[in-house]
């Protein structure tokens, strides 16, 4: 769930330039603000503290000198009188001002030969343990100098930052004492806190403003790019009349102008090409049609002559035979040309209906038995036990099969030709395998090209037009199927036709193996 959410966020980030740039701007400015703010608050904090420390030391120096002076000046050696003096002087040092309080403690230095007979006065909310031991050691070692330390003092459950300043005080008779003055500096801390929070709020507002600014700035830049992307996509999809608005003189306008020029030139060129291509298709179609009437006349005239073949001498008979066979070849060429021109014009519509591929294969095979017999070739048909039902145009698929099988018979060198039919959940397939002359790699690459012949010198029994496989491929593509071939010189050739079971059905694998796929033509 969480990772899904994260990946969704990442996806948005990856897809939208705008989100990315706004995020980067905000992140970088936040980092800069944190750095600057940190530096500022550190500097100001230090300054505040130093000022306070100096003030505190100044006050302590005065206080400690006065205390020392008072004790030195007294001539009293009486314990009670000394105690009274201590009790009088020390609590006087306590202060409660607007800037914070000052607490006080007078502690006897440890490790003295004389015994303690004075009570150590200490402010009410201060305890001896609040004074750090390390400070006490330092005070003990120092003469005539103030030593300080910062501590956190707890009073009423609140920790407040404080400075402890210690100094040595010598009391006549009683010995060495340490005077500690504890200053509460929470006022400085408060000032610092206030300043820091102001900085933080200001920073946050600043980041927010920067984010908004970045959003609008990137919007200005990204919007034309997005529009260009959209228009480019529409162009790619074939709406060649799509253009970008050209406003202003900036780089975006320059992009729009160049883009529009490119689109214009594309539209013109594609228009010209398609016009040319249409003219050419039209020409091929017209030529084929125009040739049909004279061809009909020649055919009928030839038939007339054939009816009188007995009246002709052998040479004239041979001429008549040539005439008959060449007229037939001419006719099939015309038919194939017309068919190809229909495909080129996109005028072909398949009449797809539910069918049994097994039946169509059987029909094609039985139609070619006579040719196979003439060439001494055995046709082996392998059908699955169940019917191979699929949706296709039976006339076109039978034509494809007839073409593939007659090719196999012709190039099969008299060896058996195996025709196998297979089915899977998503597809049906036929393989036509011969063990004949085969093809080289380069020949195989061209096998579906129009008017291409494997071996121009080879004698052709069926008088193929050179368009058969090109038409077969078009027929296959019309069904959104595959027509593939594999071949090895002198070992034979296998063609495999694979069709989706249902119209528009998707398949990823043919139900039958092809063997080594060396050249493949499938749906483009």
């Amino acid at each position, binding site marked *: 769930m969480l990772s899904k959410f994260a990946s969704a966020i990442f996806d948005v980030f990856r897809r939208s330039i705008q989100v990315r740039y706004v995020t980067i701007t905000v992140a970088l400015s936040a980092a800069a603000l944190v750095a600057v703010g940190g530096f500022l608050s550190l500097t100001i904090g230090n300054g505040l503290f130093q000022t306070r420390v100096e003030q505190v030391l100044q006050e302590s120096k005065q206080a400690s000198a006065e205390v020392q002076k008072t004790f030195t000046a007294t001539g009293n050696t009486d314990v009670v009188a000394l105690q009274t003096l201590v009790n009088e002087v020390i609590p006087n040092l306590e202060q409660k001002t607007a800037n914070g309080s000052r607490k006080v403690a007078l502690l006897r230095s440890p490790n003295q030969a004389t015994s303690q007979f004075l009570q150590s006065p200490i402010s009410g909310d201060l305890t001896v343990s609040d004074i750090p031991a390390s400070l006490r050691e330092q005070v003990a070692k120092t003469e005539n100098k103030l030593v300080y330390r910062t501590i956190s003092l707890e009073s009423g459950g609140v920790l407040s930052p404080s400075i402890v300043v210690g100094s040595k005080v010598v009391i006549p008779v009683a010995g060495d004492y340490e005077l500690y003055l504890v200053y509460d500096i929470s006022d400085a801390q408060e000032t610092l806190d206030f300043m820091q929070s102001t900085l933080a709020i200001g920073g946050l507002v600043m980041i927010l403003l920067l984010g908004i600014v970045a959003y609008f700035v990137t919007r200005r830049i990204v919007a034309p790019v997005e529009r260009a992307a959209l228009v480019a996509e529409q162009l790619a999809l074939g709406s060649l009349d799509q253009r970008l608005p050209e406003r202003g003189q900036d780089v975006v306008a320059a992009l729009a102008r160049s883009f529009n020029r490119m689109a214009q030139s594309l539209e013109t060129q594609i228009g010209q090409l398609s016009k040319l291509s249409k003219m050419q298709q039209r020409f091929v179609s017209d030529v084929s049609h125009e040739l049909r009437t004279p061809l*009909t006349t020649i055919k*009928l*005239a030839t*038939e007339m002559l054939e009816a009188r073949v007995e009246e002709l001498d052998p040479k004239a008979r041979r001429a008549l035979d040539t005439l008959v066979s060449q007229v037939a070849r001419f006719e099939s060429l015309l038919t194939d040309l017309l068919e190809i021109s229909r495909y080129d014009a996109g005028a072909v519509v398949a009449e797809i209906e539910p069918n049994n591929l097994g039946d169509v294969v059987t029909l094609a095979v039985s139609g070619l038995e006579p040719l196979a017999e003439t060439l001494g070739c055995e046709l082996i048909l392998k059908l699955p036990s169940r019917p191979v039902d699929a949706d296709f145009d039976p006339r076109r698929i039978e034509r494809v099969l007839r073409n593939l099988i007659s090719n196999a018979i012709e190039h099969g060198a008299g060896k058996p030709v195996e025709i196998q039919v297979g089915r899977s959940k998503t597809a049906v397939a036929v393989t036509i395998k011969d063990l004949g002359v085969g093809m080289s790699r380069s020949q195989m690459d061209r096998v579906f090209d129009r008017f291409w012949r494997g071996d121009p010198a080879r004698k052709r029994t069926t008088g193929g037009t050179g368009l058969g496989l090109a038409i077969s491929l078009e027929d296959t593509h019309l069904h959104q199927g595959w027509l593939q071939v594999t071949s090895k010189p002198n070992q034979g050739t296998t063609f495999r036709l694979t069709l989706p079971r249902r119209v528009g059905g998707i398949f990823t694998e043919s139900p039958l193996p092809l063997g080594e796929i060396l050249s493949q033509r499938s749906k483009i």
Partner: protein
Amino acid sequence: MQKVLVVEDELPLNQQLTDLLENAGYQTMGVTDGENAFPAFQDFAPDLVLLDVMLPNKTGIEVCREIRAVSGVPIIMLTAKTEDEHVVEGLEAGADDYILKPMPSFKVLQARIEARLRPMRQSEASEIVLGPLVIDVLGHEVRRDGVRVSLTPLEFNLLQTLAEAPKQVFKREDLLKKVWGYHYDADTRLVNVHVQRLRSKIEDDPDNPKIVVTERGVGYKAGQF
């Protein structure tokens, strides 16, 4: 001797056709112009017309309509155009059949002509009643509510075939065999177009037929009354 009118603008082809037809024992007349076709038809009164689609001055389609307006004589269209509209247009204008140029051989053309000229099959019944229609088999006449409906011989044959076996569903291929006399190379559009023409003459609402009913995915049958 049966008479065939050959309307074909290409003179050499026209001559070849008439020669071959005469060899096959028909009396022929050749016309090479669309405008002269209908007058020639009226003068010659042929038993069958071979009609090219592409003609100068008047197209074969128009000639076909002119002839159909006055006669049910069998018409076979000759066309070099294989596009659907062309063939369907010719059939809709009233042609009984069409043959593509170049035809596989003259024999194929001859077979088609003979099929069209063959006398109508004899029926056991002399009169069949199909809903509002009375089919007079002997008189080759169809009356709808007592009014005579003008059908071409082919349309009559189609209707008669369906009416004689009122429960049977005929596949298009069966009808091609029975009515047109084809045994292979069948174009089922022939059946579709002629059923449409027949319906437009005999049905109340040709878009919602009751007499000649379509059996989806199979073919046609006579309606149940």
